[in-house]
């Protein structure tokens, strides 16, 4: 059983590389880095920055939620709204803080469109991973890796060794209460005793 589980896990982890297709209508001139993700397409285009709730409902704070609302870009070419799902940093962070700096501004973005309904049922459209952003007319690209700086300012008491997500006080409190599997501390203990 464990061997089957390991095989399944391995095939699942290997799958993204097989799913890569790479090019799409907005891939020309893109300098985005490939992450070998499901349905990945490099995509560089001009857009307006907004938060997703604003775009759908008209509830529009001037700061787009100051990094605490999911963000979106409205592509200039076709007025298509793309939900921005991820920053360019490989550390479990979104790009909401960086994008909110450009709230309601016209920008150029570069990144990856991600998602493939053949591999992940239920997906109706790709989401966007923004790696670089700049105001239209600016020559300076900015990375979208602002989250950890904001996080460090918000939680100075969490300063220490190791990645931010293992020091985050909210995550730690949740794990201390319900365990790493979320099923209670006994479930963690039982699994670890059986598998270590």
């Amino acid at each position, binding site marked *: 059983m464990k061997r089957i589980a390991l095989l399944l896990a391995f095939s699942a982890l290997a*799958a993204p590389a097989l799913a890569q297709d790479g090019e799409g209508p907005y891939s020309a001139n893109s300098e985005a880095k490939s992450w070998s993700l499901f349905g990945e397409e490099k995509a560089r285009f001009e857009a307006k920055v907004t938060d997703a709730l604003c775009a759908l409902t008209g509830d529009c704070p001037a700061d787009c939620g100051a990094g605490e609302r999911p963000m979106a870009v409205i592509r200039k070419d076709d007025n298509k709204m793309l939900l921005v799902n991820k920053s360019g940093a490989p550390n479990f962070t979104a790009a909401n803080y960086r994008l909110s700096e450009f709230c309601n501004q016209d920008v150029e973005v570069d990144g990856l469109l991600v998602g493939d309904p053949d591999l992940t049922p239920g997906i109706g459209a790709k989401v966007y991973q923004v790696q670089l952003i700049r105001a239209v007319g600016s020559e300076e690209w900015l990375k979208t890796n602002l989250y950890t700086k904001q996080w460090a300012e918000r939680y100075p008491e969490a300063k220490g060794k190791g990645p931010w997500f293992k020091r985050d006080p909210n995550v730690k409190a949740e794990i201390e209460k319900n365990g790493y599997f979320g099923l209670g501390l006994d479930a963690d203990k039982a699994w670890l005793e059986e598998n270590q």
Partner: protein
Amino acid sequence: MLRTLLAAGALALSAFPGLAANGERVTVTGEVIDSWCYYSGVMGGPDAVTGSAHHTCALWCAAGGIPVGLLTEEGKIYMVLKWANNDKVADGKTMLSVQSHQLVADGIHYERDGIDYILVEEVSSDEGITLHNHEDYGFVPPFAQPGQ
């Protein structure tokens, strides 16, 4: 003056056509998921990035402000933009206590450009984590295991 206001309104709608959209009331039953790992395959296929196996990773992503989704039994994903009328769902705190939970949410549904969104007003039932797939997958990713 009126003409100026009308022109300004038309311009706003042109920039954000969603302003004109009306949501519809829905009741959704599903699992709260980390949408990035689900969409991207970065941690494996869809079966490996839900449930107890992926719970710690889902906490990390929600703490990092990555959008949370509600995955229904039919396979549809609703991206969460409000939770119990709190619009700060990407604040790194709000969604942590329900991550990976199977629940019933009442709210307002919007759809735009192929993505479904939900503004959750009330959670009428919360069964906690019902998918115990750590028995098959262990920790996803492996470095979510304590001590790694």
